[in-house]
């Protein structure tokens, strides 16, 4: 449907000029008028029926772009009217629009329950997980765009490679200094320490925080909230040991590390898993200062 170049529909006038008859009789004129009125009434009824049906639909405005299709190289917004059901999420609406109206509508989704982190989108001016956002909470029209500050590949799909690179840069894996004698022995964590890192382990790599951070937008080398949160998760883990923690702190206190954060709280506001990102970054800053100011 919308993969094609938008065609200009010729608006055919319903009231085309009456046939140029020579001096139509009065009766003819009357009949003509009657027909016209009837047509008008019909049109009105149609419009009324349409709006009655429209009461229970939601209007979506979806960003469309595809560099490979000629008519979509210039980004535009497509409108979809989706029948509303109780409990419908933005993702449900998008799936309906794709399955019903336009199979070329492209977006990432997988688990549909806010676990996989594939469907972070810019919905009504905020980064949200489409599967976790209720349509009923949003004002119409629901404007759906791909994540800002990332290159758009197609429709709602953005290039996540840079985000993943930043995540990898903080070495996001458990790597203890000392391993237990027996390879199969558990490496226990104290309850208090688990509580400390608990929130930071909830990250689903959706990239909403990175997209919302306008420091990350201006500085491509900035590790970004998600990566720093990952660094926090492991730097604060007591099981890893002192020397590994030193290495981790060296990574996060580089020029484009933790000090770039200017506490705008954008990431904390948009995080779909409610991770207190700014708090973690601030704690890492303090940790870095304490580490460098060791006079004893």
């Amino acid at each position: 449907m919308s993969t094609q170049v938008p065609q200009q529909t010729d608006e055919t006038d319903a009231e085309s000029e009456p046939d140029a008859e020579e001096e139509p009789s009065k009766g003819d004129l009357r009949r003509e008028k009657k027909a016209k009125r009837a047509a008008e009434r019909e049109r009105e009824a149609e419009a009324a029926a349409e709006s009655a049906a429209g009461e229970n639909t939601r209007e979506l405005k979806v960003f469309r772009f595809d560099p490979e299709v000629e008519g979509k190289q210039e980004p535009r917004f497509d409108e979809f009217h989706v029948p509303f059901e109780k409990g419908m999420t933005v993702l449900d609406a998008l799936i309906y629009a794709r399955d019903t109206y336009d199979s070329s509508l492209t977006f990432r989704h997988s688990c549909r329950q806010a676990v996989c982190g594939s469907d972070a989108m810019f919905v009504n001016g905020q980064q949200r997980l489409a599967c976790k956002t209720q349509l009923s909470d949003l004002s119409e029209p629901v404007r759906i765009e791909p994540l800002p500050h990332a290159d758009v590949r197609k429709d709602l799909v953005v290039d996540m490679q840079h985000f993943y690179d930043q995540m990898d840069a903080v070495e996001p894996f458990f790597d203890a200094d000392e391993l237990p004698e027996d390879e199969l022995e558990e490496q226990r964590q104290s309850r208090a320490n688990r509580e400390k890192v608990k929130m930071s382990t909830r990250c689903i790599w959706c990239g909403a925080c990175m997209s919302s951070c306008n420091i990350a937008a201006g500085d491509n080398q900035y590790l970004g909230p998600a990566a720093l949160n990952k660094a926090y998760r492991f730097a604060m883990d007591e099981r890893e040991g002192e020397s590994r923690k030193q290495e981790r702190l060296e990574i996060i206190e580089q020029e484009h590390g933790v000090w770039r954060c200017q506490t705008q709280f954008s990431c904390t506001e948009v995080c779909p898993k409610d991770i207190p990102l700014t708090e973690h970054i601030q704690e890492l800053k303090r940790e870095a200062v304490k580490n460098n100011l060791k006079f004893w």
Partner: protein
Amino acid sequence: MSQSHNRGLIEDFGRWREFRAGMWAWIFHKFTGWVLVGYLFTHIAVLSTAIPASGQEAAVLQAGDDVYTQTIVTLEELLLVRILEVGLLAVAVFHILNGTRLLFIDLGVGLESQDKSFYASLILTGLITVASVPTFLAGAF
């Protein structure tokens, strides 16, 4: 997939209506900071050009006819300067209050209520500015 669409930076500023408290705090802090830097240089320029006053004789200084006093008095006569002074106070007060807020955030205190503390600093700034108006504008009209 060699091509991609870059929406550029302009969209960030186009979305100012959707900015949240923390973002506004950051923008205002930057803005007031630059205003204060600008004021500082103007301040130095004006006062340093009026400095020859120190070379005056004691009698001239006593009478208030020296360059320094003259400069200040002339400036204070201008309504625009009086109004700008109120603005300067507002800018400075906000910068101080929000700066204190940022210090607490750096210490990890009250991160959950960062938006409330921003609104509080805004309201306090407003109150202090309004309260200062009689002092600054006394005799200006």
